[in-house]
Every structure is written in C-alpha cells, then in structure tokens.
C-alpha cells in the first residue's frame, strides 16, 4: 500500500513577515520554516494507517526551495519512509504546485493507494491544491476531514460542514483526503526518529523533471504588502444621560462616513 502525503513548508506563525522590494513575494532569508500544521494531521494519519498495515509505505512530497527541508525532515523523523522534494521557488501558484505534485508522484513509480494533505496551508490559505491535484489524477477527494476509518479498500471519512454538523462519506481507494484539525493528535518526532531520518532516502527533482513549465503558471503575485496599521480606537463618553442621543448620532455618523461599515 502506497500512501503519499503532500506537505508544505510555511513560515512559523510567530515570524515577522516582510514583503520583498518588488512585492512579488516575502523575504524568505530570515524566516523560520515549519511544516504546515494541517499537513501534520495528514502525516499522522498516514502513520496511523501504516501502524496497522506494516507493509504500507509512506512517502512525503513537497514542492519548494531547498534551502531548508524542515518539513520533509520532520515528517521522516515522525516516521515517514521516504521523501520527494521538487525544487521550485516558494511562490508558485496552486495549479503549478498541484501539477508538480502529480508529476512527482508519477515519477516515483509507486502507484498511490491514498494521498493525504492538509486542507489548506496557513501561509496563502488558498485551499486549492488538494482539489486540483485530485482532479488532475482523476481521484475522488474529500476535504476538511475530521474522522477516518479504513476497512479494506474503503475509507469512511467524516467531514465538517457549516454549523458544526458532520457529513459522512464512504470513499473507495485510491483517493485523496485533506485533513482538518481534530482528525488526530500529531506525534512528536522523537530523538531516535530524528537520527533515523538522516538515513532515509530523499529524492530530488526539478520542475522540468516533473513536467511543469512557466506556461503552467496561472497566477503571478505582484503586490505583496503588509496590511495597513490599525489606527488607535476611539472612545466615546456616554455616561451623561442627557448627551447620549448626541453621542449615539456621532458614533453612527462615523461608522457610516469613516469606518464605512453601515
């Protein structure tokens, strides 16, 4: 059984973000990278499947720059068997990433029985790669899953929908499933795991190796900038009952003209 887990490396949530001078991306030199937290649930789920199917092989795949391979090393230290890195700049669009992932999975020579991903990456929050990848591979896919039960070639998944309700699906493998928080509790990479990870195979492909060209690019980023600094809040004194009407009118006026929310 071949399980592929697609992981993305994202800036640590506490990182201070600075856009590049040309606005095409963010400065990546000083960033501390972590595995996208939603992808950790996907890795953990793959390892849980492997625990009850010892013959299963878990491959982690990532598209991104090589400078730091934190996410892949963490996944292998947690217990994944091997890894594939498709070398690319970090600001690719969702379509190119999905196509690169497809190419990498195919190039590995292993036929996927299951592909697991996080439901979204916490940096660009595009929520597109899982669905685009499933479409490209012509696989059934379910996203935002919080429950997972594999029996034979069917996975029963629970998916969160609005209002806190759950949808239950029975999906035949091969399939693509995208994890949400609550699916499981990701394990730590243990110290022996970190040591072992160094010896695990990490294949490295270029974008052209996996059939991705500039023409595949659907979205180009041009204007990264920080959100405007929040101005200080305004306080209104309405303790004087006689003036309350006047103050309320003033607040309503400002909400219309300044905040433009009503």
């Amino acid at each position: 059984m071949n399980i592929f887990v697609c992981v993305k490396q994202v800036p640590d949530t506490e990182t201070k973000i600075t856009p590049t001078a040309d606005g095409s991306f963010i400065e990546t030199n000083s960033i501390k990278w972590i595995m996208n937290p939603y992808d950790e649930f996907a890795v953990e789920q793959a390892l849980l499947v492997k625990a009850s199917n010892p013959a299963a092989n878990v491959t982690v795949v990532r598209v991104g720059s090589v400078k730091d391979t934190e996410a892949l090393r963490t996944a292998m230290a947690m217990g994944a068997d091997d890894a594939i890195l498709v070398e690319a700049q970090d600001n690719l669009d969702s379509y190119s990433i999905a196509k690169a992932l497809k190419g990498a999975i195919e190039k590995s020579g292993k036929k996927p029985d299951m592909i697991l991903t996080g439901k979204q990456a916490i940096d660009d929050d595009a929520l597109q790669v899982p669905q685009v990848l499933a479409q490209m591979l012509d696989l059934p896919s379910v996203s935002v899953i919080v429950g997972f039960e594999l029996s034979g070639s069917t996975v029963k998944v629970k998916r969160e929908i609005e209002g806190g309700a759950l949808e239950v699906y029975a999906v035949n493998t091969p399939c693509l499933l995208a994890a949400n928080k609550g699916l499981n509790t990701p394990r730590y990479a243990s110290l022996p795991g970190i040591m072992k990870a160094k010896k695990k195979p990490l294949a490295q492909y270029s974008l052209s190796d996996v059939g991705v060209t500039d023409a595949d690019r659907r979205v180009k980023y041009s204007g990264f900038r920080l959100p405007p600094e929040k101005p200080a809040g305004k306080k209104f004194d309405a303790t004087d009952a006689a003036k309350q009407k006047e103050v309320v009118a003033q607040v309503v006026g400002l909400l219309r003209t300044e905040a433009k929310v009503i």
Partner: protein
Amino acid sequence: MEFGLTQEQIEIKELALKFSRNEIIPVAAQFDEEGKFPKDIFKKAWELGLINTCIPAEYGGAGFSALDSVIISEALSYGCMGFNTSFMANDLALLPIVLGGNDEQKKKFLTPFTTEFRVASFCLTEPGNGSDAAGIKTSVKDGGDHWIINGEKMWITNAGYADLFVVYATLDPALKHKGICALVVDGKTEGIVLGKKEDKMGHRSSDTRGVRFNNVKVPKENMLGNPGDGWSIAMNTLDHSRPLVASSALGGAQRAMDLSIQYSKERIQFGVPLAKHQAIQFMIAEMGMKIEASRLLIHKAAWLCDQGIRNTEIASYAKAFASDSCMQITTDAVQIYGGYGYSKEYPVEKLMRDAKLIQIYEGTSQIQRLVMARELLK
C-alpha cells in the same frame, strides 16, 4: 573554529523546545503551586529520547555528546527549571556509572534506563556536609560477600521515585577523600528509609528528600571502581554535570528575557511601551549580554568534555556565571513586570524563585570560585 550548531543539533533543540512549549509551560505553574512531581511528563520526555542523554550508544543510549546534552537541557529548562532538575538528576546519578563503572556494571545498570522509564538519584550531600563534600559520614563496611551502608543523605533529588541510587560512603572518615566509595544501590533494597518531601522555595515540583540507609546490604559487584575511588568519580561526574546544570540556568534566563521583551513591548507607561524607556532597555541589553556569554561558556565547557580535555576551570566559570546571571536576569524580569511581576498570576516570580537554587546546588557559586582560584593559582 565553529560557533554554529549542526543541523541535527538544531533539530534536537527544536524538538526539546516544542516539548517545553506544549507539555511543560502550560502546566508548570500548577505543579509548582501543588508541589507535585511531574511523573507523566517525565515519562513522555523519556519516550521521546530527551532523558538520560549521558548513556552511550553501546549501552542502548542515543550516544549524545556533552554538547548535545546541554542543548537539550537548556531547552527543557526553558519550560521549567524545576522540571529540568528532576530530568537532570537522572543524568547526575547515571554519570558516575558511565564514568567510573566497568562494562558489566554499565550493561547491568544503564541499559534498563533505555528500555523502560526509570528514575535515579545521586546521593552525595549529607545533613552535616554540603560544600565540604569530602567530609562524608555515611559509612560503608565490608560484610564479607557484600557491602553494608549506614548513614543519612540530604537534599536528594528524585528520592521518592528512585529505582536506583548512587551513594557515596566512606570506609573511614579519617581517610577524608581517600576513603570515599561510590556504590550503586537498588531502590527497593531493604533498609532505605525516605524522609518527607521538602517544602521548597522553588523547584517545587522536583522531589527532594532526606534518605536514611540502615544496614543496607549492597552486592560486592555494585561498587564503582575500587574502594577509595569514589572521590575522583564524584569530581569527574561534577566536571561533566556542571555544564548541564549551567544550561539549566541558561534556559531559565532565556525564558525570563523572552518574557521581559514581550511584556516591555505591550505594557504602556508615560504614553509609550516600556521598551521605549532607556531604563528598561538597559536591563534587557544586560540580559542578552549575559545570556550570550553564559551560552558560550557552557558550550565550551561541554565541548572540552567531548574532546576529552579536562574542563574543571571552564565548567566552574560556566556554572557560576550562568547561575549568577540567571538570578540577576530573573530578578530584573520581576522588576520589569513591576507589581504584576510580584504576583503569581504572572510567570516571572516563579523564575526568580527557581533561579536561586541553581546558585546553590551542585557546588555553590562560592565553591565554584574556589575551584576557579585553585585551578588558576596552581
């Protein structure tokens, strides 16, 4: 010359810090308040390979260098200095076996610590002698096919949970340090009587007790080295453990600085954040300077250990400087937090209480200076 950590060391540090942030920091104040021993968290850290870092690979350990060990210890202490005291006490007790034991003893006593979660205690100090460690009164007598230990030990970390004790005892107090022996004692041996848990100022989660040995019979093969080798084993152990203890102070100091920086950017006084006031900036600058210097000393002391070069002088510099700095830094952290810092609602008063102990245990700051002077003047 290389100042950076290896990729592997960075990963080890990240794991230990993640463990501190997720598992230790959220509960440390509660364990401190209740004086509760964090056995489950201790075990969880053991499962991840963060405990007993001194056990060599050939006996089932991870084969960490002394430098790896201080990196782990700093990161765990960042979570809680008290928790780290319990964690480190295992290493302190196992180090005499690593350094002074024969192959048979290492297999017998170290390997079980790698296959199951076990707790160990180092028993040197006595009610009547702390800094004057060679003045041990606990006696060891030849009982024919076994040794017999009698005496009382004090301030024994992990005592209430110890599966194994390493006990220092003397053949004859008149022999001074030449009469001291180091013995490995199974925690379940008859005649070991535990005192009550000490109610301490800081490190309240760590289990500290007096331990009485009443005619405790120990197999002959449990003596480390030869009769009379105990003193050199103890001193060798302290050379290895001082960088570790220093790194515990460093972890606490780093936490105090991180909290101070965060708070000084949030708290507004005179219309601007505290961080804009030069008086606060000076305290924070001082913290950064002392932390960096502590880390360099600690890493050098551990590096010397790994090179097999005698590190007594540098290890004492590291231990005294890091613990004195930690005391100053945590005191200033309380100062920066002001009234809030003095309240248990905020995390810095605990750091200040915890810092004090590191100036005292494993050789007081004053004893460290005696060691330094002895090394410098010899």
